[in-house]
């Protein structure tokens, strides 16, 4: 069971974890990403997550499918939230379970790393001084000049 969601609803990590697990599985892993109160030493009061939802949703599903196929887990759920989040609120939860622990660790880690590289989601930090700013991100692979390196 592989599930991927982009949602504006509050994420309950326990509920996400409860969706994986199986009598044949000896390990389960839950990763929780949370809005923290600082960024590079600067106090942060909240975060806005924007997404290109129509693309973020299938991209997240693709990542989950890749993790399952490459890393050998058939129980993986990833939920990413968008909208305005307060400090301590959950932005992303990823749960996996597997017969042995390595697959769950690897699959969960793969999903969060790929999210950060490829899923069209952006965040704007709200600073304590009233300003805000987009968080510096990562240019997704498969974009820019063509693979052959020629000019467009």
């Amino acid at each position, binding site marked *: 069971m592989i599930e991927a969601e982009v949602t504006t609803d509050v994420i309950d990590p326990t509920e996400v974890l409860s969706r994986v697990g199986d009598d044949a599985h000896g390990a389960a892993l839950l990763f929780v*990403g949370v809005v923290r109160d600082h960024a590079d030493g600067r106090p942060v009061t909240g975060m806005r*997550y*924007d*997404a*290109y939802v*129509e*693309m*973020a949703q*299938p991209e997240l599903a693709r990542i989950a499918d890749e993790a399952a196929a490459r890393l050998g887990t058939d129980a993986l759920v990833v939920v*990413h939230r968008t909208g305005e989040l307060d400090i301590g609120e959950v*932005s*992303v939860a990823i749960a996996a379970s597997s017969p042995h622990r390595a697959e769950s660790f690897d699959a969960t880690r793969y999903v*969060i790393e790929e*999210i*950060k*590289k*490829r*899923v*069209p*989601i*952006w*965040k*704007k930090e709200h600073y304590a001084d009233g300003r805000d700013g*987009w*968080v*510096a*991100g*990562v*240019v*997704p*692979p*498969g*974009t*820019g*000049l*063509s*693979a052959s390196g*020629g*000019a*467009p």
Partner: protein
Amino acid sequence: MSISVNALFFAAYRDLVGTGEIAVELSPGATVGDLVQALRARGAPFDGLPEQPAVAVNRTYAFLDEPLAADDEVAFIPPVAGG
């Protein structure tokens, strides 16, 4: 004869151009790179877009030499920062 494509702007790019979506007329056979050039040629604020932005065509990442067809959805994707 020209084709019309839909350009979408997100996050910092949306803040820059002041809108999330505009239709752009291009010559048949135009590429993503041609769309970028056409937009930047409009001057401010569009000339603030990068010369080689990341884009997705119809919700799939694409290189700048990708040819466009009528009604394609071309999203300008600032560096992503999910998680």
